[in-house]
């Protein structure tokens, strides 16, 4: 395993870069999309709630691979040329946004309705109360689950290997097919994934204990 790591250090490192890059871009994108749909889900208008719920339910119940392959196959065939990395990252973003929407919705709902009523009765508008009172409190509640979503993203970004996304898994596949040493290669890839995900998951467990029980 050590020889694989030292000999293919460059490829593994660039794979790690693509994995992290895709995960971070997908996280930011899905935070934006997820927040929008979370706000739709708690809207006072029935039809807006309906759209929010439908989006979340549909995306959550379809495999990530189907979404990602959909972007990778359909978009270049019928619309514009995009590479595997872009298609994969968009797929990850859409898939994760549904889970993030659920997380944020739960966070907002956990902030008591009294907070909203209090804010409204001192003269804030709905959106002011949301931005200044509810969301800041909800953020603290949702940071540990969002961290866990990021860990999932890092792991899920391995689907980029299906669409030639140059990520860690893809590089692992290439290294394995050139060295024929599948055992050590995939162990090495596993170590690289664990370097990112293990510390993060322990950090999130710590924050969960510290913030949620407080």
């Amino acid at each position, binding site marked *: 395993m050590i020889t694989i790591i030292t000999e293919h250090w460059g490829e593994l490192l660039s794979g790690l870069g693509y994995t992290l890059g895709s995960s971070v871009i997908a996280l930011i994108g899905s935070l934006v999309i997820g927040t929008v749909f979370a706000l739709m889900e708690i809207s006072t208008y029935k039809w807006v709630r309906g759209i929010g719920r439908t989006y979340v339910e549909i995306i959550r119940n379809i*495999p990530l691979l*189907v979404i990602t*392959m959909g972007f990778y*196959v359909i978009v270049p065939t*019928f619309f514009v040329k995009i590479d595997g990395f872009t298609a994969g990252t968009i797929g990850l973003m859409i898939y994760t946004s549904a889970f993030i929407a659920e997380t944020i919705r739960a966070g907002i709902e956990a902030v008591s309705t009294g907070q909203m009523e209090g804010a409204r009765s001192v003269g804030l508008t709905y959106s002011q109360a949301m931005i200044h009172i509810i969301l800041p409190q909800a953020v603290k509640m949702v940071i540990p689950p969002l961290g866990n979503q990021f860990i999932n993203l890092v792991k899920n970004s*391995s689907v980029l290997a299906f669409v030639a996304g140059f990520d860690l898994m893809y590089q692992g596949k290439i290294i394995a097919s050139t060295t024929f040493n*599948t*055992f050590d290669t995939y162990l090495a890839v*596993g170590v690289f*994934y664990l370097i990112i995900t293990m510390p993060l998951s322990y950090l999130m467990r710590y924050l969960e204990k510290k913030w949620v029980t407080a």
Partner: protein
Amino acid sequence: MQEFLNAYSWVNLRFLLDGLWVTIEVSVVSIIFSFIIGTLLGLGRYVQVKYFSAIVGFIIDIIRNLPLLLILFFTYFSLPSIGIRLSVVPASIVAMTIFESAMLAEIVRSGISAVATGQMEAARSNGLTYLQAMRYIVMPQAFRKMIPPIVSQFISLVKDTSLATIILLPDLTEHAQIIYGQNVNYVIPMFVALAAIYFVVNFVLSQASRWLEKRLSRSKIN
């Protein structure tokens, strides 16, 4: 439009349903195995036996933090080099089981921790042994708490079987790929079909879980 509709010919639909059957088979077998192993692992982590629980916990954490795809690759491509040769279906089942039992172990552990320690103490002071208290008092209550997360884990298991197409498991996704590989006009209809079939299967599962949850919470009140 006619080209699109041709994709849903009887032969193609039959082929998709064959794939769905493989998906269901692999999912159900993995669910059963990972439920048993996950419960044992979760208990092993919970009981806090010196060293043993720490080791079990560490193994669970490692597996949970690896991508399933990597575990699939490992079982199918790497294990043969140490003499364990599995064909596609068993390899998929083994990989899914390894991954999902680690996930379930965490659910079981946190479910048991959520049942108040007072329950255990009361059972013990009534004269039950630790194992009896676990079996008759703590576990039944813990399982009730665990049902929603366990079902959602099973939903992700069903979705995750699609990853096994990379080792050419002839499941729903793989069969759809074979069909749209023949004709570019079949691409969109096949993805629509894939999304629809997975959605129906998983949506039914999640609704069943909601129903079960409601029923169980009602029986608790009575």
